[in-house]
């Protein structure tokens, strides 16, 4: 069921400890992101969220497990499939939903859409859909924090296809040469749109090995087991905070949705691990949570989601003068 075990990859996480408040928090975060995206999927056919959406369903454990290690002041960036990353690090829900509707209350006031999220107060400094672009940009965040002798860490998420872009290697090289405080997180769902990994790389190549060859400490592990993600990320991020320079993690995952659009693909396919079901069963089994807690939380989430959608639908489109308002920045330094 777990990629890691299937592929015999090391699981450092087993050595890490999680406590029950953290376990609950992570579980609820996954659940919340799942329910939010399910609602997007449901409402998308109304044709009012008129922008491409790349849902994170199936991959939520990664953003949640990584984010549980972040502190205020840390930075996050992502790419086209960024909903879970944005929400997991605390990105505002109302602004997110409004953004999908293109409203002035959206996180970029409608200018960006699903593929251009930002919430500076949560440290989420931006996502853009050109594959690979934020890898170098995030490396720049780390460059500047190091230059300013600040202690914050930068996390950048990207898919497996981004590792085919030259900018990935260029960034690894530069980050290592200056020992920048950045964690590169590759979500390897072994798919790029409709093209399986095997058609884009020789079968014996492993992304993690290549990253390792840059002398960057690199792990590959299961992205569906949230605590494993948490533990591995903790290990790496602690190292980064200690000044050990850049780290890389490849997380094997499965997207349970079509590449772009609202369609959810069955969770029951053979061999597929749904991070939500898995974690729920584990925590119930281990008696960390009880079903009632979940039921209460589900209701809270539904309420929160309903409000967010209602507000988004009621909100206005940006006023027409916004069309040319911010082509150039006019603020003072």
């Amino acid at each position, binding site marked *: 069921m777990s990629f890691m075990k299937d592929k015999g990859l090391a699981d450092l996480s087993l050595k890490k400890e999680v406590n029950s408040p953290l376990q609950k928090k992570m579980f609820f975060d996954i659940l919340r992101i799942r329910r939010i995206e399910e609602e997007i999927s449901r409402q998308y056919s109304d044709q009012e969220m008129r922008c491409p959406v790349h849902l994170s369903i199936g991959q939520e454990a990664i953003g949640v497990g990584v984010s549980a290690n972040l502190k205020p002041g840390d930075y996050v960036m992502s790419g086209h499939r960024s909903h879970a990353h944005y929400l997991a690090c605390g990105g505002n829900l109302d602004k997110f939903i409004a953004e999908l509707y293109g409203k002035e209350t959206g996180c970029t006031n409608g200018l960006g859409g699903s593929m251009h999220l930002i919430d500076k107060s949560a440290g989420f400094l931006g996502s853009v859909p050109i594959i690979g672009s934020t890898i170098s940009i995030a490396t720049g965040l780390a460059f500047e924090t190091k230059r300013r002798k600040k202690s914050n860490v930068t996390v950048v998420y990207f898919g497996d296809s981004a590792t085919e872009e030259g900018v990935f290697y260029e960034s690894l090289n530069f980050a290592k040469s200056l020992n920048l405080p950045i964690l590169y997180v590759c979500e390897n769902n072994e798919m790029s749109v409709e093209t399986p990994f095997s058609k*884009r790389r020789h079968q014996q190549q492993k992304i993690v090995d290549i990253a390792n060859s840059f002398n960057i400490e690199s792990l590959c592990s299961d992205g569906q087991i949230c605590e494993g993600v948490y533990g591995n990320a903790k290990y790496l991020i602690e190292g980064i905070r200690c000044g050990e320079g850049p780290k890389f993690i490849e997380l094997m995952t499965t997207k349970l949705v079509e590449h772009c659009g609202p369609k959810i693909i069955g969770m029951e396919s053979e061999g597929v691990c749904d991070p939500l079901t898995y974690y729920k069963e584990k925590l119930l089994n281990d008696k960390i949570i009880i079903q009632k807690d979940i039921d209460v939380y589900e209701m809270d989430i539904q309420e929160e989601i309903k409000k967010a959608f209602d507000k988004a639908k009621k909100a206005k489109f940006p006023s027409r003068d916004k*069309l040319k308002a911010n082509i150039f920045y006019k603020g003072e330094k």
Partner: protein
Amino acid sequence: MNRKILGREAVQEALDVSLQRDKDVILIGQGVPDATQTYGTTAGLVDKYGTDRVYEMPLSESAMAGVMLGASLVGARPVMTFARLEFFLLAIDPIINQAAKWCYMFNAQTHVPMTLRLIIGRGWGQGAQHSQSLHSWFAHIPGLKVVLPATPYDLKGLLIASIEDPNPVIFIEHRWLHYNHGHVPEGYYKTPLGIPNLIRKGDKATVVSSGYMTIESIKAVNNLNKQGIEVDLIDLRTLSPLDDTIILESVKKTGNLVVCDHASLTGGFSSEIITRVCEKSFGSLKNSPIRISLPDSPTPTTRGLANYFYPTVKHIENAVKSLLGIKTEDPFKDIKPTDKLDIPDQSFKGPF
């Protein structure tokens, strides 16, 4: 004999015919052989011609453009597809620094017969990074040919001609053209590169247009005709090479010039057209020429703003009328932010 098909089908036929006629032709691009079939434009081709003619490629736009350049030096005739023009911007070095110059630099001992299909996005929240129109960039580069088809007929005829051309050709394919119906002959034919097409005739004004704007211009000109205003509508078809004779002659006749271009105003190709008219046919203009273009702004994502970003058929009509001294209103007047103008066709339901 008047077979009508969709733009996307016309592209598919051009590729099919080219693969059929010349075994050196190969196709490559992300998604070209997959189930999405590049919006249907490559439907069935991998099955028909096999995986050593029709290739998927990794997300390595720069290397892959270089690889195709190399392949073209030793016999291949690659047709590369970029699902968005923006992705091609990762491959500027191999095309602008290299492909455009190899014939010249090596004094014609070598040449680069490759075609680059760059697809321009519009609507449904494409936003700033999936909708740029940079044909004026490419027309500024000596050694590149730049083709902007408009009608289904030319999508097919110009693509075949581009593939047959022994030089690097930038073939700019506006996504909305895929949804457009029109007459397309079966089998093989070519639309020669470099010769604009006089689509409608009239003596009141000259409307010069290219690519998707030609589709809008046709509607505008039809509307004008209904109001008794007859104009010349010239579809450029290619920006480079460009024989401007027909434009100069038309402006001599009409004295009025409107140039429509689906690109940012400043530094757009319309200014090249206007300048050539001034240089070569000074005095033929009776009024200030008018440029219709996109604003000098990145593309907003929300339809609430995109509705006011793209010029409309009304803009073109109004431009002609204003040259004729007819009063016009704000062309955006009747457009509401909630209007669903961000789709090419009712069949389009997203998500990309």
